[in-house]
């Protein structure tokens, strides 16, 4: 166990383990009020510490807390090909995100701070009208639904509970990718490319690891 957990009385240790298990098991965010270890900052810090040992982070959502992969760990897993969606599923998910979130946000019909999971339901018919063959759409949607990446609402589909587990940085990256895809020559796309280029340059020039740099 971590030093933080060991230092706690037995009952508080049980509170921490219960919150940890719920965070990692429940598909929906947990209300902080339901778990002592999420409500109390000191215990929450121990939860955070234990999640970090497994490459996970505490993610705060509008409705409570959940857990997700640490960004650096997610990148390392992806480099190993772990958790990477096959191209068909990626194409279908991109369509869902465009119709459910990106376009409604651009049209002002969805608040920028709205969680992915409250995206507008996309009728399956709408996805069948794209260049992706119907059979591929059907099979891909099934896999995405089974993995909790999308969620069926009647005959429509929207981003699923796995999107609650994204860190703010990962969430921003996905939305930026959608902007780059939807309007590659637009001013927003230019700004994203410029910012990414300058941050890549800055990290290449800095000999000090980012975390240490922040500490100074």
């Amino acid at each position, binding site marked *: *166990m*971590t030093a933080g*957990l060991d230092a706690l009385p037995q009952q508080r240790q*049980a509170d*921490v*383990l*219960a*919150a*940890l*298990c*719920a965070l*990692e*098991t*429940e*598909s*929906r965010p947990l209300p902080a009020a*339901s778990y002592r270890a999420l409500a109390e900052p000191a215990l929450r810090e121990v939860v955070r510490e*234990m*999640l*970090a*040992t*497994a*490459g*996970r982070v505490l993610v705060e959502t509008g409705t409570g807390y959940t857990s997700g*992969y*640490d960004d650096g*760990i997610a990148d*390392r*897993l992806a480099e*190993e090909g*772990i*958790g990477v969606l096959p191209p068909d599923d990626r194409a279908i998910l991109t369509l869902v995100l465009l119709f459910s979130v990106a376009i409604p946000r651009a049209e002002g019909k969805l608040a920028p701070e709205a969680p992915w999971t409250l995206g507008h339901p996309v009728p399956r018919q709408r996805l069948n009208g794209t260049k992706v063959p119907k059979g591929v759409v059907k099979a891909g949607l*099934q*896999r995405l639904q*089974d*993995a909790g990446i999308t969620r069926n609402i009647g005959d429509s589909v929207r981003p699923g*509970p796995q999107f609650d587990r994204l860190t703010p940085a990962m969430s921003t990256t996905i939305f930026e990718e959608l902007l780059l895809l939807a309007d590659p020559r637009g001013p927003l796309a230019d700004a994203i490319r410029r910012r990414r280029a300058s941050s890549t340059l800055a990290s290449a020039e800095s000999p000090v690891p980012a975390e240490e740099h922040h500490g100074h």
Partner: protein
Amino acid sequence: MPDPLPLARMRALRLVAVPWAEEELALLQETATTAGRRLIDVAGDHGARALMLGWPADVDPMAVLGADGEDLPGATPTTCLVLAACIGCCWPDPDAPLLPGKPVPENQVLDALASFTRPGRPVSESLRTRQAHWKSAIRRLRACGFLVPEEEDSLIRLGPALAGWGDADVRHLRDRHADLPRLVGEPA
């Protein structure tokens, strides 16, 4: 802090091979304990052994969620019934360990369900419709790890998620083994 990547990998892949080196296995066990988890040794039906992340014996996921299973997305009555039938068919001998169990053809599970559920359903809910629901549940159970992902032979195999069940859960199953859906004539 030990490298968190191996545990993250275990969560993402559900099962990883048991490390050959004893020191590596010891480090993995220590990291899991530090993270509030435990390693579960899972037996595959080909004799292979693998590891998955579980919870310590005194941490019950159902209890910490304050749910009896009905609130959990995906754990619909149909899914629970189909899982019961898969266990009934793949675990013929209650004195044997639950895993790895015996692989069985999908039809055996579907037939067990057909004979278990009440006859005289309305015409609108034909056997074909029910079978479609049962097959969807099998697909969900495969996706959640309660059944092994479909292999070339299409057989139903009990999955690693069952290895996370506590001794008390398995004891309950053993006590009610005769009530699990299975085909008449199959050992109970």
